[in-house]
Every structure is written in C-alpha cells, then in structure tokens.
C-alpha cells in the first residue's frame, strides 16, 4: 500500500506542477513572423519604410503589376488619346479594353488592382507612422529620427492618396487614427463623399470648378505634403537617392495646386524649385528614360527600378516598360495612337503661318491630325515600305517605334513582325523600353524580363511647362516668360542634334526639324493668351507623351470630352474595335471598385454615373 501512496503523491505533484505553468504552456508565439514590438526600433522602421516605398511601382503581390504600375500607362495614356491597350488580341486584357472604350464599371479587375495598389501604399505608410509612434513610446528612437520617418511616410501617404484622387476624385482619406481602428478591430470608419446628386458633377468639369456636395480630400493630402516639405532634407537622407526630398514634396504639392487651378501658389512653389538650382534639363532627352539617366539632374522624384538584386529569381522590383516583358514588343501593350504620332509633325515653312520646325498649332491655321503620317498599317513585314519624309519633331522617334526607323539599339523596326496584334495599330512604345546595351541593367527570370529604368513621377521639364502654364493662366501672368520656358524645353532638343535618332551609318533617321518659338510675328503664338495656351498644351503633349500624364492634363484643362470625341471619330476608323466608343460625362473619373463598396457597409459609395 505504501507504494501506491507514494505513486499517488508523485502524480499529484506532477499534475500540480503542470497546471501551475498552464499559461506558459498555452502560449505559442507565431513563428517566422514578427509583431510590432519587435519592429519598433530604427532598423525595423527603416524596413517598414522600404516596403512603403516598395508600392510606388504598383507591385504589391496580389494583382498583376502592369495593371497598376506607377507609370499610369493605362489611366494616363490608353484612357486618353495617346495609346491603345495592345496585347494579344481583344481577349488578352479585356478589362483594359473596356476602359479604352469608356465602358468600364466598378467590376473591372484593372480598377480594383489600381485601388488595391494605392491603398496598400497608404496602409504601409501608416504602418510606418504607427510603429514609429510605438518606438517613440518605448524610447527606442529619438524625436528627431521619428520626425524624419514620419516626414517620409507622410510624403508617401500623400502621394498614394493623390494618385487615388487622380483616378477617382472622391476617395476616402486614411490617416493613422482611422488605420489603427481598421487594423485592431477591422472597423472601417472613413469613407468617401461623392456628390449626392449625380447631376452636380455629371459631365466633364475641370477640377477647379468641381461643385456640388462631393468632397475631394485635397486638404488632407496637402497637409501631408506640407509636413513633408517642412521636415524633409533638401537632398536625400543618407544619400539614398530613392528617398523623397523637400523639393520632391514641393513639386508634387505644386502639381496638386495646379490640379485645383491655384496658379499663383503653383508658380511660387515651382519658382522655389527653379531657384534652388538643384535641377536642370539633361542634354540628352532620351536619358530620362533609360538607366543612365536614373536620378540625374532632371529627376525631381522617380520610382526606382532594380534588377538582379535580392529578389533572386524574381523581377518585380524592375520596370516592365509598359509594353510588358521581353524584347522587342514585350507583351505588346500600350500601342501609340496615330493621333499621337501625327502630333509630332512639324511645319515645313509652307504650311499655315508658321516658320519651319514648329508644331501644327491651330493658331497657325493648322490641324495636326488632318493628314496621317505615312505608316505601314495593314502591311506585312515583307511588303515594301518607305517611311514618311515630312519634317518631324525629333522627340517622335524617342517616344514611338515605327517601321523603318531604328528602335533604340535593337535595329530597324521591321513593322508587322514586331507588332503582336495589328488591330492595335502599327506602332510600338519606346520610352522605358530596354536598350540592348543596358544588358547589365535588365534581368530575365522565369520568362519575365524587366529593366532598371526608373520612372519619373516628376521631372524638371514637367515643372518648367507647369510654370509656363501658370504664366499663361494667371491674369497678371508673363507670356514672355511662358515662351521662354517652353523654348527652354524645346531648345534641349533643338540644340542637341547629336542626340537625335540616327541610322547605323550615322545619318539622321528621319527628316527632323525643330525650332524655337520666335519673339513676335505670325509664328509667335505667345502674343495672345489663347495662342500661348495652345502652344503650352501642345508642347506638354509632345514632351510628356506616354509618361502617363495625358488624361489628367485634358481633365484639368476641361477639354477631355471634346478632345477625346474628336480623337475617337477619326481613330476608330483605323482601330475598328473602338467603333461605338463614346466618352460619356461620368467617364471624367473612374468607377470605384464594387467590391470595396460592398465591403465598406455604406462608408464608401460609387461615383456618379457608374
């Protein structure tokens, strides 16, 4: 019996010992992941910040990068008159085609992808702010360090919201307080405020005139950029060229003001950038779009692209060049329009009232789109073809690939053989595509090819043209300065024929002709506000073509519908799949993804007309 008593005692002890460490026994921390507390120090926040920057390229791991890439090729160019969807026929990316036909709704994947990419960027920026605050509380970082982290995070948060406003106008603004609720309790307490009555904002309206009851969270975004402007250093922190700077914040804030029609504020911000002397135009226009021009003097803020890096076996930190992966045509997306090509024609001195080498401006009595540049539409690669010999702006062949002209350093564009599907027309995009010579700066992994070509969110030429626009629009504006600014941009091209496209033999590849606007006379459109406005806008289209800005330019100028209707009328004869497409009033902004509206339980509502 003694034996049993001993045994029972031992067992009792065991049970007791066991039950006293219950809580510990039932505590199993997640493995292979980290909680906020582990991250709340300088190095943790830096890493969170990197991932907040990481969303600039639009790739965040869920939906296909090309649909929401930071270059905005779909929303800026396809949605306007600069390019077509492209790809392998009409079934390739049908949702993008619905956008191009202005028939999209809140169910399109491309719309959802954009929304998710941007708000993921907002969320990641908020994570930085959140963990920075925890670190401050834990005293693992200093106030000064915290300020820098928060300034960069707010720059990014503002940027992602700005992109959302550009796409949808009436969007929710998620600050760190709303975000905290969302994260800890899954509660959505912010929404958007589109106008109650659709008619209030139906139709195209320049942002400046947006009336009705809808609220665009401009103010919140401006607060973010103002904070960034005041707290960011003039040159990138720690010399890391990808970081936001004071001038990047100023430049983007200037654009925000420009969108709202506040020309004097825009101008004063831009003058600050110009006066800083930090920025200048690159002599070689095309360097802006290839690796050697990354982070050079013209770049005010760029989305950094990287290849052959830590993401071994993946290329998602790289740039797919809008057309998609692979040489020469990639997946064949983003085919430039005939309308855009025609815009690069320059006068030969006999047309209209202009001297040779100027664009086909209406004030010269010209219509750039009346006669198409000769093209190989409908021809096979073996059919004979001679490129057009009319005078052309040399920027054309750094923007658009066309038959018979060298395509970067890949040789002469052969036409149909490099066109994946000719229903989207005979042209290929060039900006952001890879050079053969830049081999070390592109990667080919798992069948996908990407480059290290950065994408410029804001470059100095853009800023100069913005300033020119302000000078035109301000009642006390200086039209002479506007002309100077435009000429400054044109001169970079005009003054450097050594950087024009040349054949292998060193001959100019086409009949390039570009001149500056003269001061006075029948060739000077800057004598009147109207003429100056046309000249600045036309210059903007040429200089910034296929860089994802066109639609918003049309929108803020208030000419989206008229321009696009005119464009479609002629373009749909050639691109028959566009027949019947009409830009409707509500197309001035995009539909909010229906999934988001459904999930939001009343907090987020659809834009008028969708």
């Amino acid at each position, binding site marked *: 019996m003694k034996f*049993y008593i001993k045994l*029972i005692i031992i*067992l009792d002890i065991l*049970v007791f010992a*066991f*039950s006293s460490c*219950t809580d510990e*026994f*039932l505590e*199993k921390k*997640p*493995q292979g*992941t980290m*909680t*906020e507390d582990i*991250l709340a120090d300088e190095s943790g926040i830096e*890493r*969170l910040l*990197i*991932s907040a*920057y*990481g969303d600039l390229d639009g790739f*965040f*791991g*869920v939906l296909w990068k090309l649909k929401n890439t930071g270059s905005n090729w779909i929303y800026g160019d396809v949605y306007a008159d600069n390019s077509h969807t492209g790809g392998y026929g009409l*079934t390739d990316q*049908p949702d993008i085609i619905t956008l191009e036909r202005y028939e999209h709704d809140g169910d399109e994947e491309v719309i959802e992808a954009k929304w*998710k990419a941007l708000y*993921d960027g907002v969320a*990641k920026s908020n*994570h930085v702010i959140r963990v920075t605050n925890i670190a401050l509380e834990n005293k693992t970082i200093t106030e000064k360090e915290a300020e820098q982290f928060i300034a960069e995070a707010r720059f990014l948060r503002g940027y992602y919201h700005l992109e959302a406003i550009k796409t949808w106008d009436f969007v*929710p603004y998620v600050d760190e307080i709303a975000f905290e609720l969302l994260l800890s309790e*899954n509660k*959505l307490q912010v929404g958007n405020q589109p106008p109650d009555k659709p008619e209030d904002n139906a139709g195209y309206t320049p942002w400046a005139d947006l009336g009705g009851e809808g609220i665009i969270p401009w103010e919140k975004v401006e607060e973010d950029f103002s904070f960034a402007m005041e707290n960011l250093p003039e040159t990138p922190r720690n*010399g*890391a*060229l*990808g970081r936001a700077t004071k001038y990047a914040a100023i430049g983007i804030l200037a654009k925000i003001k420009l969108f709202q029609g506040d020309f004097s504020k825009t101008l004063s911000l831009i003058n600050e950038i110009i006066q800083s002397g930090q920025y200048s135009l690159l002599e070689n226009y095309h360097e802006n779009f290839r*690796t050697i021009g*990354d982070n050079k003097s013209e770049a005010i803020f*760029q989305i*950094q*692209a*990287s*290849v*052959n*890096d*830590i*993401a071994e076996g993946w290329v998602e*930190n790289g740039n797919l060049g809008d057309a998609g992966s692979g040489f020469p045509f990639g997946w064949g997306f983003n085919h430039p329009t005939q309308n855009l090509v025609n815009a690069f024609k320059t006068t030969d001195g006999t047309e209209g009232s202009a001297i040779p080498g100027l664009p086909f401006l209406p004030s010269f009595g010209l219509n750039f789109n009346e006669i198409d540049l000769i093209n190989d539409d409908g021809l096979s690669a073996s059919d004979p073809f001679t490129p057009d010999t009319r005078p052309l702006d040399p920027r054309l062949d750094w923007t658009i690939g066309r038959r018979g002209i060298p395509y970067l350093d890949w040789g002469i564009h052969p036409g149909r053989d490099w066109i994946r599907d000719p*229903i989207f027309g005979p042209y290929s995009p060039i900006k952001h595509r890879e050079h053969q010579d830049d081999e*070390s700066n592109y990667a080919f992994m798992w069948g996908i090819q990407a480059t*290290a070509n950065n994408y410029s969110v804001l470059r100095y030429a853009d800023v100069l043209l913005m300033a020119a626009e302000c000078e035109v629009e301000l009642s006390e504006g200086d039209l002479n300065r506007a002309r100077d600014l435009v000429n400054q941009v044109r001169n970079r091209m005009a003054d450097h024929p050594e950087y024009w496209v040349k054949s292998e033999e060193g001959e100019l590849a086409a009949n390039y002709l570009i001149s500056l606007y003269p001061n006075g006379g029948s060739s000077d459109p800057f004598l009147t506000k109207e003429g100056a406005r046309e000249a600045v806008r036309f210059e903007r289209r040429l200089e910034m073509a296929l860089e994802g800005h066109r639609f918003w330019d049309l929108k803020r100028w208030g000419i989206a519908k008229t321009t696009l209707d005119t464009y479609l009328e002629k373009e749909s004869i050639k691109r*028959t*799949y566009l*027949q*019947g497409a009409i830009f409707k009033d509500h197309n001035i902004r995009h539909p909010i993804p229906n999934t*988001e509206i*459904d*999930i939001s339980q009343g907090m987020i509502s659809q834009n008028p007309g969708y």
Partner: protein
Amino acid sequence: MSCSKALKVLTFIVACVIYNSSFSQGITITGTVTSEDGPLPGVNIMVEGGTYGNITDSDGKYVLVSPNPDIRLVFSYVGYETVHEYVGNRTVVDIFMEVDVSQLEEIVVTGYTTQAVKNFSGAIDVVDVESMQTVPTSNVTEQLQGRAPGVTVTQSGMPGAPISVRIRGYGTINQNDPLYIIDGAPADQYTIEMLNPDDIESVQVLKDASAASIYGARAASGVILITTKSGKDTGKTNFSFSGYVGVQHVTNLPEFCTPEEVAMIQKISKENAGITLEHPQYLLSDSSWGLPDYLIPAGHSIDLDGPINESDYVFPSYDSAFVRADKEGTKWLEQIFRPALIQNYFLTATSGGEKGKFAITLGYFDQEGVVKYNQYKKFTFRVNTLFNVSKRFRIGETFALSYHNLINDVGMQGTFLDANIISEAMASADIIPIYDVGDNYSGNIQGIGGSNLIANLERSKDNSNQYFRLLGSFFFELDILKDLTLKSSLSPNLKMTFENKVFSPKQLEDPDPGINSLNQYVDNSFNWTWYSTLYYNKTFSDSHNFRALVGFEAIEDKTTYQFASISNFYSDDLSFRHLSKGQELPQVDGITTEWSLLSIFAKVDYDFRAKYIVSATVRRDGSSRFGGNNKYALFPAFSAAWRMSAENFMQGADALNDLKFRIGWGQTGNQNIGNYRIYNSYSTNYIYAAYDIEGKNNDAQIGISPAYFGNANTKWETSTTLNAGIDLAMFNNKLTFTIDWYDRNTTGMLIEVPTTALKGVADEGYSYENIGELNNTGIDFSLFYNSLQNRKFTWSAGINFTHYKNKVVKLYNSDQIYWGGNDDWAGLTSRPNVTMEGYPISSFYGLNIIGIFQNKQEIENSPIQKFKYTINTEGDTTWHDVGRWKYEDVNKNDSIDYGTPGEDDRKILGSPHPDFTFGLPINLQFKGFFLNMFWYGSYGNEIYNANKRTTDILYGYWGEDFNNGLSKRVLNSWGMEGVDNADAKLPQINQNVPDMELRSGLSYYIEDGSFLRLQQLIFGYNFNTKSWNGVEQFRIYLQANNVFTITNYEGIDPMITRSEINNAYGTVNDFSLGTDLSQYPYSRTFLMGMNITF
C-alpha cells in the same frame, strides 16, 4: 528491401521472441463451452475483475492460465446469457451457455474508457473489423468505405494516397477530418496512414456529440477510435501468418479517336472556321490532307518534298530527330499503365498469462501502382504489452514503428492549374509514337509534341517520399479502491518525412536536356499527449449503476520542415546526387509551427437496471490557438436512453431481444483552423516589399510588410448536435438494426471576411471571423441478419446506409462564393465548384446548356448571348451562331450573361453529395467453403468530368500543333456526317470556338455519378484443422476487387476523390468535391491469400 529478405528478418525476430516468452505461470484451466447447437466457438472468457481472458476455439475449447484458483470466470457471448463461474480447485471447467435474449454484453471503447453497448446512450458504429480487413490496402481508412453507416470515404487509386474520411456530412467549410484516437493517443489523417490495417483489433466511430464531446474542441467532425491487437491470456504463445499476393489492372479506359479521325477533325475545324487549310504535318506535299509518314520538327532542315532518309537521324537534335508517325495510334493513356503486383504479409505472435500479455507484429506491404514506375512500400513493426505488476497495478505500452516509401508520386488528381500524368496522357497526340527512329524517346520538339510521358515517368522513377513514424503509449493502471481506477498514459508521436526528388534529363528524349537537380524536403513533427483519468464504477442495491470519469489531458505539437534544392551535378549517377555536390541555384526554405492543448473533462453515467439510462459529459479545453477570453472553451453533452425491452411488460415478447430508444444533445468544437490566427504580424519580403532606396539599379533593399491580419477574437467552431436513435435486436439476436437521425448545426464557422483594401494587403489576404453557419441532417442505419452459427450452411447479409443533407446556412453574405480548386489553366477563370449560402458545400455552378442553335431563326428568337469581355474587331459584344451551344436565360432578362454581377445567368447545376451511399456485405458459408461479397454504391450525386474539356472541346486550342487525344464523342458533334443535329450534344467543330465554350463552368461537364459496384468477391476454404497438430486455423482464398461497376458515368471511375487544397493556415478544405480532374483510377485486383494460426 525485397520481400524474401523481409521475411527472413521477420522470422528471426519472431524466433527471439519465442525464446523469451516465459509468461506462463500459475494454474492452467481448460474446458469446453457448449450450447444447444453444440460446441460454441468465439466465447469470450474473462477473469472477473481482471483484464485477461481468452476465447474458445472452433470446437468450443479454451485454455486459460490463472495465477491462482480463487477466481471467477466470466463467459460471455453475444446472444447468450453470461455465465459467472467460480473455479475453486478445478482445472477443467465445462460450461453450457443458454441463449439469453435480454443481454447484450458487447463492450465498446468510448473514449478514455469502455462501456457495455446495452447501457450506452450515444450514437456509435462498431465496425466489423474482420470483414473490413479483407480490403487489400495499406490504409485503414480506405477499408472503412461502406462498413460504417454515417461514414463517407473517398479515395484515389494511387497506392499510399491520402484518403478523405467524413463523418455525417461536412460540418465546416474548413477542415473536416475526423479525430483519430489510436490506443488513446490522438492522431491525424497522416498518422493513421502509418497504421498497418492488420494490426487493428477494433474500430469504433463516435458519431454524435453526446458520444464525442469527451474530446471537446477536436471532436466536431466525429471521432474514430482504433484499438490495436493485444495479447490473449491463453497461457501459450500463438503465431499467425496471413498474406496475399495479387495483380492489379486498370479498367474502363475511355475510347479515343484514331490519328486519322483526329486529322479529319482538325481539317473540319479549320474549314468550319473559314481558315485556310494548312498544317505543317497534315497538309501533305501533294496538297492533300492526310497522315504524314514522318513527323517533322518545326524549323527542320529536311526537304519535305524529297524522300526522307532515316540515316540522316541525329540525336539529340532539334531538327533531325525523325519520328515515324504512328498511324494506328499510340494510345498514350493505355501506355502509361501496366499490370501491377500487390502483396502483403503479416506475422503475429501473441501470448499472455498471469504476469501479463504481449503481441508482436510484423507487416510488409508492397503495391506497385498501375501507372508505370509508381510504387508504394510499407513496413511496420509493433509491440503491445501489459504487465500485471501486482493484483492492483498494471503497466504497459503500445509501440509501433513504420516506414513507408512512395516512389514516383504522380498525384492523385490533377488540378485546374497543373495536369497530372493521366490528364497529360489524355492530352497527348496518338500520332506521336513513344520512340523515334533511333529508339530514343520521341517528342519534346516544337511541332511534334510536348514531353514524352513515358520518359517523364522513367525520369522520376528515383523520386521517393519516405516516411518514418513512431507512435506509442506508455501507461499504468492502478486500482486505488475496488471500484476506483487511476490510469495515466503518455503517448509520443514522432513523424519524419523525407522527400527526395531528382531530375536527370540526359539520355532521354529532350534534345536540350537542361540541368540535373536535386530537391530534398524534410518534415519533422513531434507530438506528445499525456492524460490521466480516475474511473469509478459501482452498483448500488443491485439496481443503480454509477460510472464516473474525470481526467486531464495535455497535448503539445511541434513541426519543422526544411527544404533544399540545388542543380547542376557533374554526374547523373545517383550516388553523386547530394546537396553538397551541386553547383548552381541553391535554394532553401523552412519553418516551425507549434500548438498545444490543455484540458480537463468529466463524464457521469447512471442507469437503473440497464433500463433507464442517462449520461452527461463536459470538457474544458484550453488552446494555444486562441487568445484572451477565447482561450478556454466548454463543451457539454447529455444523453438518455430507454430500453423498452427491459421493461417487465415486454417479458412476453420472445422474438424481441433488445429495443432501445436513445436521444442525445451536445456540443463539440473544431479547433483545426491553423495556428497563430490571433496575431497581427509582419514579415520580411524581398519581392513585394523591396525597394531600391539607394537608387543603385541592382540593389533593392529588403522591406518588412504585413504577413497576417490576425483576429484576436478568433475561436473554435462549434457544432451542436441533436441525435435520436433506435437499437433493435430480434430472433435470438439474428437480426440487428440500428438507426439514427441527427441534426448537426455548426455555428461560428471561420469565414474569410473580405477586407477593405484600405487596410492594405497582407501575405495572407483575408481576415477571418467566426460568423458562418452550416447544417447537416441525416439518417444512417445498419441492418444485419446472421443465421445461426455452427450449422453446415450459414449466411449473413446486411446493409450500412448513409444519408446526409448538407447546407451552407450563412457565410459573410449571400454574395460570398468560395470557389473550388485552383485557377483555371487556360486563363478562363471560372471554376466549377462553389460553396455559397443556401446550397450544399462544393456545389457545381455554371451556365446551363439547353441545346444547340439549329438555325438563324432560332437565334433570333432566343436571348442575346453576350459576354462582357468578348468583343470583336467591330466592337460587337454578342456571340451566337448556328451550331453553337444555346444557354438557359436563368434570370429571364432576355440576355445570357456570364460573370456580370446582377445579370449573371450561371446557376447551381448539381451536387457532388449523394442522396445516399450504402455498403452491402453478403457472406455465405457451407462446411469449410465460404463466399463473401461486398457491394458498395452511391446514388444521386453528380460528377464534374473535367477531362471532357480536354478531350471534347479544346480541339481548336492548339493551333498548328497536333491535337490532344480526342474522345470518340467529338465524332458526334453537331454537323458531323451521320449525326442527327437535333440530338447532338457537342457544338459544331470549329477552330474558332467562342471563349464561352472553353470555359469550365458549363453543364456539359456535369454527369450523373450514381453507381453500384461489386467491390469485393472472396471465395475460400477453411480447413478443418482438428487433426492437425498445433494448427488452429488454416484458410485459403481467392479474391477479386472492383469486380464490376454499374454506372452511367462516362469517365474512368465514378468513385471520385477530392483534390487537396491547402489554405494559408495549412488547413485543407472541401471545396472541390466530386470533380474528376483525371483521377488516378481505382484498379481491378485479383489476388490469392492465406491465413494460418498455430
């Protein structure tokens, strides 16, 4: 290890055991048990109050060793009155047993304890283990098919493939695997695979909550209790050997078009599409259309118009590897299969006496797959012992070691994303022969075909998945008082998985061999369970029986996996193929997960003379998977029963032996939801979250981004079950009948809550909340008739019947759809299975085809068939043509829409859930001869036959390549010669198939899946071994499995396994039921076997 070698080892071990068996001490009692019908075999003899005993042999004789004569023996046999006999100083105790209609003394294991069936008030299946074990397989769960009412088993024909067991329908949209308990220790589906089916003594299924709730948070999907064989107190050592060897064949392969017919279809499909007739191979040099003599690689350097000279053959080469066209047809699907050997050997030694008992078993199972180069081997070793340390104290252990090796895992099923070997074989062009003119494997050359499947199989013949498992328990039992027993048991469970995959491309058909490689995957899991119970059992005033159990249990589990891969080895020789020797592309991966559970439980039973029975159970579980207030959960259950047959007023009803009415209510939980769901967490991510912050072009820095959106309020899922049942036994227990009705409601089901994008994206994209509801109701019954034993002719027959009705009551909202399967491979993203509110889990979904447009008039009178994203070059978004499929306008809005919210015309097209399934055992015995049959059937379910998409529709998809294998059905397409267009099922053959017809969500693929199968037919002879010295039993038999099937299903096999889909938390769902994605077919097997006991 070869089988003869295995046998040698086995013999040696057994020999050792014999020398050491010295348990037999004390007095030996012998005797004969008889009844009216003569000697009674199989009578259970137990020493009263003890745990040892024996059973009578075929002559009713028994031997028993007892430490002393001061004992009472208890003789029990189903249907006979139990006899308690005091031994005294006798050594021969003969007993006459009378048929007793009122006693059912069958003992069942009920979780931590055992109980007599008669006073059990929950719903339980006691499986007929002996007949179950005749199923030739390595997996116990496969043997359960049709043997237990309420249990649904789906399986694949691949040897060693995991098997899905579902008890009473599908209780959650998450993981539905039942809890397995092997000798008291919990085990998962993968551990159960390690068991040798021959080791099993008993299997019991706890079906309702009142029976299962003692297992609390793990019992919502039912509990399967398995007890392994232990020794018998016979006083001597018994050996038995059983074995079988057989051959398996694949059956019922579908018929394919000949190469000539395929070429014709190719031609017609171009003609009908208005495409210029051209094909690099079929359009011959004389401009006629036909089969070429040779298949010419694209980019060839051969003059097609000139004579082809086989001596120009070069290997390896892209353009000079000549291939002779196989005009008769290679029949790829047949080529990948072979007749395959199956063999199983099992050796047991058992003994027992006063000091204790033991059982030692050795097993070897070896099954070749019917797919070439595929094989499964299993070796098991088990020792179960019990020592009587003293009269009141016993210690013991169960210990099993097993080793499995699955060679060349070709996959049970394909997926929509990846094909498996069977779907690839269906997609291979029969004009391509296996070998080219140089007798090398043909193929993998542009213009000729993709990979050569036979080469692929040969190439992967050295791939093995090896598993080492150790499962055991160490326990003691102490009778503290006469009626109070303490038991404590510690069960370690060690799993080691080692997968070795090599790729050796050289010497095979590939002209560009690529580089050789090695992938190794190691998974180590250690799990331990410790439980202690106190059990009190006492009868007051001969009428009031009390049983009470209290206990606690702790479980901890830790799993670590590691993966490494490297390529470019100097030599293809496998002896050089080690991780240290590769040159390029090293990759590693690995993670650890842990969970733990700490519980207390109690159970109280009371019955009044086994007439009025009540029972209550409660368990409190604490789980590491939950946090805060949800860390602990309480699971109660109650049940009651009334045995009307025990009432006095029933005494006259002689034919009625037992009649019991049962009712039970209880709650059980499902905590099988993955680990760490409560935490918000972050992780490094070098792909999604990296950024080149330094602007260096090739130096992206790694970032940290959210990994999981946790939900601190996550908790277990709760199932509440109401069960009512009747047990009936009549005619001296010859007829037994048990029926149960149940209603099981699952609440708090974990649902993916769509997360607003404003929260950002985590690696795991959803938040989960306990908001779903699901309901299962059903009836299961078993009816069995067994004629009296020991007559010259005996027979028995029965039915195990299972019916359940499953309905998803509530998800996040009525629009939420869980799609089954992975994304569709052809970019046509619609998957056929949906789980949505109001319908059974995993229902089939899509457009309903109501015919084929016969003429323009019909098109004009029909709704417009438009598809949002189908737009032609003229901006037209409609598509309809004569000869194309016509769809049902479900929402009557005069247009057919696909995927447009609010206008979608897709609907539920069918259900993979049968109206009922059943197993029918029929056993006949005449003198020594016996004939056993087992029928299995399923009625009222549909099957989604995904193969039809490849073989019936996608003929136009391959452009200028050779077509895939085409079903003969294609010859009966609309517009084909001799086809009555009004009856045609397939639309006109046309290379420009509208996108819509390429989609997977169409009613064309849904078929009736009902079938009746003669699963087993066994004919054998039991030798009369009376005069054979020492031999107690000798039995030989011939057996056929999967003898024939009556079904309308057009695929290979109507018995469809689910395809396995894991979610981010590692749990497996049931969203792809009844979808035949080229399932590894279940083969027909013929075997011969024997059992001998001596």
